[in-house]
C-alpha cells in the first residue's frame, strides 16, 4: 500500500473512532422523568424530559397530581445555556441563564419582566457527585448525586430535605459509580460492547443493528431479563460475522420500547473477523 493510501486509511479510522466517541458522550436519552419528593417521601412534582436525538431540548414541570406548571425550552449558546419557561398559553414565565465561571456553574432566573427571582446569582460548586449551592458567598444548600441514582438536596448540615429520582420509560434509572446511568453502552474494543441496564420488572431486552441508511442489519441478542440490574456482553464479530466495516446504529428495546439509539463503529481487525 502506498504511503498516501495508508495515511488516508489511518485518517479515516481516527475520524471514525472520534465520531464514535462524540456520539457516545452525548447525554443519555433514557432519562424520561425526574420525580421530586420531600424527606417524608411525599411526591411533590416531576419533570418530563424531551430530546432531539441525544440532546435534551425541552422539559416540562408538573406537580405531583400532573397539573401542568411550565414548559422549558433549552437552548445552548456560546454565552451559556438559556432556558425559557412558558405557561399554558405559551406566554413567557421565566428565563434562566446558566453559565460557567471556573469550576462553578452559575444560575440566574428572571421572570418575564426581568425581575430576578432568586435575588442574585446562585452558584454550584462541585465535582459531579456533590455540589455546594452558594448565593452571595453563603452556603444555602447541598446537592448530592448518589450511586443509586438519587439526587438529594440537603441542608448545610447534611440533613436531606428533598430528593429526586430519575426514571426512564422502563422504570427507575440507577446511577453507577463511574457516573454513568443505565442503560449504558461501554465500548470494550475489538467490536465488543457491554450493555448494562436496570429493569423495574422482568422484560424482554432486544439489541439490533441498523445501518446509517436505516436498513436493519440484524438482531444481536434477544433475551428475557429479571428485574434489577442486568448486563449483556455484545460481541458483534461473533453475532454477525459477515457484517461490513462502518458506523451503525445500535438500537436496544425493552418490551418493544426503544431505550437506546447509539452510533457504534464496527471495524474489521487485521486478521479478519
Amino acid at each position, binding site marked *: 500500500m502506498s504511503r498516501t493510501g*495508508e495515511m488516508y486509511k489511518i485518517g479515516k479510522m481516527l475520524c471514525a473512532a*472520534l465520531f464514535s466517541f462524540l456520539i457516545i458522550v452525548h447525554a443519555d436519552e433514557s432519562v424520561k422523568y425526574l420525580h421530586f419528593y420531600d424527606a417524608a417521601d411525599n411526591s411533590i412534582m416531576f419533570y418530563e424530559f424531551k430530546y432531539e436525538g441525544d440532546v435534551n431540548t425541552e422539559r416540562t414541570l408538573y406537580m405531583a397530581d400532573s397539573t401542568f406548571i411550565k414548559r422549558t425550552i433549552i437552548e445552548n449558546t456560546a454565552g451559556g445555556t438559556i432556558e425559557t419557561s412558558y405557561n399554558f398559553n405559551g406566554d413567557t414565565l421565566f428565563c434562566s441563564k446558566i453559565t460557567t465561571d471556573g469550576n462553578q456553574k452559575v444560575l440566574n432566573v428572571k421572570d418575564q419582566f426581568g425581575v430576578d427571582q432568586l435575588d442574585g446569582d446562585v452558584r454550584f460548586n462541585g465535582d459531579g457527585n456533590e455540589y455546594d449551592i452558594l448565593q452571595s458567598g453563603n452556603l444555602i444548600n447541598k446537592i448530592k448525586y448518589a450511586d443509586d441514582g438519587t*439526587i438529594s438536596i440537603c441542608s448545610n448540615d447534611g440533613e436531606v430535605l428533598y430528593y429526586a429520582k430519575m426514571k426512564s420509560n422502563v422504570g427507575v434509572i440507577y446511577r453507577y459509580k463511574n457516573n454513568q446511568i443505565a442503560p449504558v453502552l461501554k465500548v470494550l474494543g475489538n467490536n465488543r460492547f457491554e450493555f448494562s441496564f436496570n429493569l423495574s420488572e422482568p422484560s424482554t431486552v432486544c439489541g439490533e443493528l441498523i445501518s446509517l441508511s436505516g436498513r436493519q442489519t440484524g438482531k444481536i441478542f434477544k433475551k428475557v431479563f429479571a428485574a434489577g440490574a442486568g448486563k449483556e456482553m455484545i460481541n458483534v464479530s461473533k453475532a454477525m460475522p459477515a457484517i461490513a466495516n462502518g458506523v451503525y446504529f445500535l438500537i436496544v428495546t425493552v418490551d418493544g420500547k426503544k431505550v437506546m439509539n447509539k452510533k457504534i463503529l464496527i471495524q474489521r481487525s487485521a486478521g479478519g473477523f
Partner: protein
Amino acid sequence: MCLEKMFTIGITLSVIITNAFSADVNDVVPPNIVFEALALNRDIATAAKPIYLSPTDLVPSPDKTKLYVAEQTAKKVAIVNVTTKSVTKKIKLPNEVTGIAVSPDGSKLYATCSSELWPEGFVYEIDESSGSITQKIKVGHSARAPVISPDGKTLYVCNQFSDDISVVDINAGKEIRRVKVTREPYAARITPDGKTLVVANSLPLARATDTASAHCDISLIEVNNDYKITTFGLTQGSHSVFGVTITPDGKYALITHLVGYYTLQATRIDAGWVHTNDLAILDIDNKKLLNDISLDYSTDIGCANPWGVACTDDGKFVCVVHAGSNELSIIDFTQLLELSKGTTWLAGKFGTLNKTSIRKRVTVEGRIPRALAIIDNKAYTAGYFSNFVEEFNISLSTGKSSAKIELGDEPAMTMERNGEYQFYCGDIYHCTGAWQSCNSCHPHTRPDALNWILSGANGAQKNAKSMLYSWWTPRTNWNGKRANTRESIYFGILNELGRQPQDSIQLPMEAFFMRLKPVPSPYLVKGKLSESAQRGREIYYNKAKVDCIECHPGKLFTNLKYTPSICNDIWDATAQIKVPSLNECWRTSPWDHIGSSISMDSVCINRLHSTNAYKLSSQELKDLVEFVLSL
C-alpha cells in the same frame, strides 16, 4: 502494522475518553434544574424567598393539651404542647397548609393544602401520633378551612376559587359531592349536632352598581337534607368575610367581616366613613340575621380587619383577632347577645363595645393575627408575620399575653415580604385611628367587588382594582390618574389611610406589588386550557373573527391605551378608561370600570366593547369566554 496500531490507539482513546465523560447524569439532570424547581416552588430558601412560617390556623386537640398550627408558607403542621409551651413535632406536607381539622378522637389530623403556585387542593390525613400521611384526597381549587362532622365521618372543605364546598367521605377516602355556594368560601363551621354547615362567602357576587345586592352571603347548608342551602345576605357593603364560629349551644353563628360604605365619597376615614369592622350574629335555628355589630371602639378608633373568631366552651366569651390593628378583642358574649336582640341595628353604631364591662382590647405582639383558638379560659393567637403563638387569659381585665410559644426561627423580612406585611397592616402607624388597611379595599391584593368614590373623584364611582401587574401596566387607576404604582401607593396611604407616606412603608409595598403573580385559573384543567378554551384561544387570536387583541394583546392582555367606557356611566359619561389586563379576570368580577357586568358573555358581546364578537355563534362565544376566564 502501523495501521493496526493507530486504529487500536483510536479505539482505546475513544474508550478512555468515553468512560471519563460519557453520559453523566449531570448532563441531563444538572444541579441547577433540581435547585430551580424547588426554589421556584418555594421548597428551599433563597435570598429572594426565604422560608417563613406564616402561621395561619390554630386548632386545639380534643383533649385540650395541644395546639395544631398551620405554618402556611413553611408547608408544615406544628404540634404544640400547651402545658410545656413547646413544639413537640413538625409534620412536613407537600404544599402550603391552609387549614387544619382534627378528628373527634384526636387520632387524625386533616390538613388542607394549596398555594398560589399549585392551587389544586388536597386534604392530607395525618396520623397524629406518628406524623405520617395516611390518606391524600383531591378536593377543589384553593382548598381551605376543613371542618369535620361531629361523628368524624365527613369532612367539609371550602374551595375558595371553585366557589363550592367539597364533601369528603373520610372512610372511603374520596370526595363524594360538591355543593355550590355564592363566592369565594373562606371559612366554615358545623353545628354541634352535625346538621348545619355555616359557610362564609368572602366576596359579594353582584353588580357593584346594584347597591342593594352588593353584600356577602352566608350559606347555611343542611347536610342531612340533601345539602339544601339557605342564603343570608350580610349588611350592605359587607365583604372580606374571613372568620366564623358557632356558639357551643349551636344556636348562633358569629361572623367577622368588613362593611364598606362605598356610597360615601372617601374623604375621611374616621367614624367608619370608609369601613367598619363588624361581627354578625346569625340565629341558626330561626334562620335570621340577628344583628351586625361594629367592633370599632369609637368614632375615632377603629379595630381594623377582624379575622379569626372563637367562643369559650361555656359560651361566656367570644374572642376576635383583628389582623389589621393587631389586637385581640375579648367580649362578654352574654351582654353582646342581649344587645343584639334589641331593636337597634348595631352596624355603624360606634361605642357599643367601648364599655370595659363588655369588651377588652388587647394588643398582640404577633403581626397580622389571623389565627385564633380557645382552650378553656385561654385564647391563643398567632400573627401571620411572626413565629410564635401568644397565650392570653380570657378575662375583661387581661392586659397582655400570659405566655409566648416559639414556633421556630424566622428569617429577616425581604423587601417583598415587608411590603406584604405593610399591605396587611392597619394599626395606628399605618392608618389614622386603625380603621383599615390596604387589604380592606383590596383583599389579598385583589378587588373587593365594590365601587368606591375616592377623594377628589368628583362623585365618579370606580370599581376597586386588582394590584396584580399594576406595577407593569402604568399609568394606574381606571382613568390613569396616577403615573404608576408608586404614586398610587403614595396617595392611597395619604388619602385612604390618612397617613403621611413613609419610604419605609411605600417602597417595600411597591416591591411586593412588582412581584405579584397570578393564581392559575380554576377554569384550567390540570393546569392547561380545556378543549373549549383551546377553541376559544383560536377565536381570540383570529383578527378576522373578533377584535380582542386590538385592545388586549400581548402577554399582559392590554395595549395600555385609553378607550371610551364600555358601559353607561351616569357619573362620568365622558370617561376614557385604561384598557385593563385580562390576567386573572376570572377572579375580578364584576367587570368594567364600574362593575356593572357580572357575566363575561355580556362583556364580550357588548357592542361598545367589541365591534364583532356579537356575531359569534353561541358555542364560539362560550369557547371565547372559557379562554378569557382561563387567563
